[in-house]
């Protein structure tokens, strides 16, 4: 097992060293950390996932290009143990500066609207007070990793976006026009995050997001 781990580490470094410019070895150029490891004895997940960080670009370079540039692949997980190994070694949500995005997406899907898996998709948006955010984010991740949404292969990933006083949780799915599935995801969200049944969540279609202004129904009453 040690040997395998070593090989993987090497793969990662080799990939990095391709970047001769020396610009940023852990920068946005890396979009793959190599094959996912499944050591025996660990609890394999249904899908491998990648964790990405991004800083929201300034208004001066709004546009998907600027966004793609700021995306940073941080790690990948194929088992429950690997998830905790990553999660407990990265910075806590409450310590992340405002206007950052953390994405946990299925491996192979870029956390961008342009990705083929997201092109026809959309997302449920929840706005939370920052002090409720960490717990809700963790619950959201665990629910997705454990396949709790019962939505077949519709789920693409989850995102948390930090703001000054609050944070936004999103869950992305493939087919915005599949109303039955999006409703199923919404109901699962409410159940898994212990939201009151009468709470209203907003669904955004990715293709509309490019043009539409952002109005989100506030939701501040999550039970912790």
């Amino acid at each position, binding site marked *: 097992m040690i040997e395998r*781990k070593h090989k*993987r*580490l090497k793969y*990662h*470094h080799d990939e*990095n060293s391709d970047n001769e410019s*020396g*610009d*940023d*070895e*852990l920068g946005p150029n890396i979009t793959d*950390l190599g094959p996912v*490891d499944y*050591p025996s*004895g*660990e*609890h*394999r*997940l*249904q899908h491998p996932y990648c964790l990405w*960080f991004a*800083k929201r670009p300034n208004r001066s370079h709004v546009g998907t290009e600027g966004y793609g540039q*700021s995306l*940073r692949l*941080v*790690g*990948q997980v194929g088992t*429950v*143990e*690997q*998830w*905790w*190994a*990553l999660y*407990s*070694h*990265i*910075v*806590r949500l409450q*310590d*992340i*500066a*405002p206007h*950052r995005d953390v994405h946990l997406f299925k491996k192979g899907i870029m956390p961008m609207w342009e990705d083929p898996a997201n092109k026809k998709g959309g997302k449920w948006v929840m706005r939370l007070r920052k002090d409720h955010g960490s717990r809700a984010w963790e*619950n959201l991740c*665990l*629910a997705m*990793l*454990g*396949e*709790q949404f*019962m939505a*077949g292969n519709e789920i693409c990933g989850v995102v948390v976006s930090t703001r000054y006083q609050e944070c936004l949780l999103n869950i992305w799915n493939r087919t915005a026009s599949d109303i039955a599935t999006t*409703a*199923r995801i919404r*109901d*699962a969200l409410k*159940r*898994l995050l212990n939201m009151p*049944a009468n709470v209203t969540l907003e669904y955004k279609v990715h293709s509309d997001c490019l043009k539409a202004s952002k109005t989100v129904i506030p939701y501040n009453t999550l039970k912790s």
Partner: protein
Amino acid sequence: MSSSPLAKQVTGSKAIPTRKVVINDACELPNYYSATPGGTLYSTTPGGTRIVYEPSFIMNLRNSPLSKTPPTYEIPSSLLRGSTPEKKTKSPSKRHYNKNHIDSTKRDTKQIEDEDQFSLDL
């Protein structure tokens, strides 16, 4: 009628462990007849079984030794838990360090970029 305490201990019944999933609405039922509410598929046809974990099950693995081992890949120092901006500039990784020696002007711009990109509120 009256059995000895020992016999009672041996034959005493124990409840079969079950878990109750409360369904409030028809839409919470699974899509497939082969799935139980809560998500577990009983069918074992190839490709038909999903690996489902309850959040509490995942939580219980949080403190296993494997879960506490850092990942094999390098996490950017600015995103490491417990890192502070000071620490970040002082102790870059070895590779980082070597590169810095090759071109110190590059290092300076790089660090500024790094901090700008992921500075922490600590």
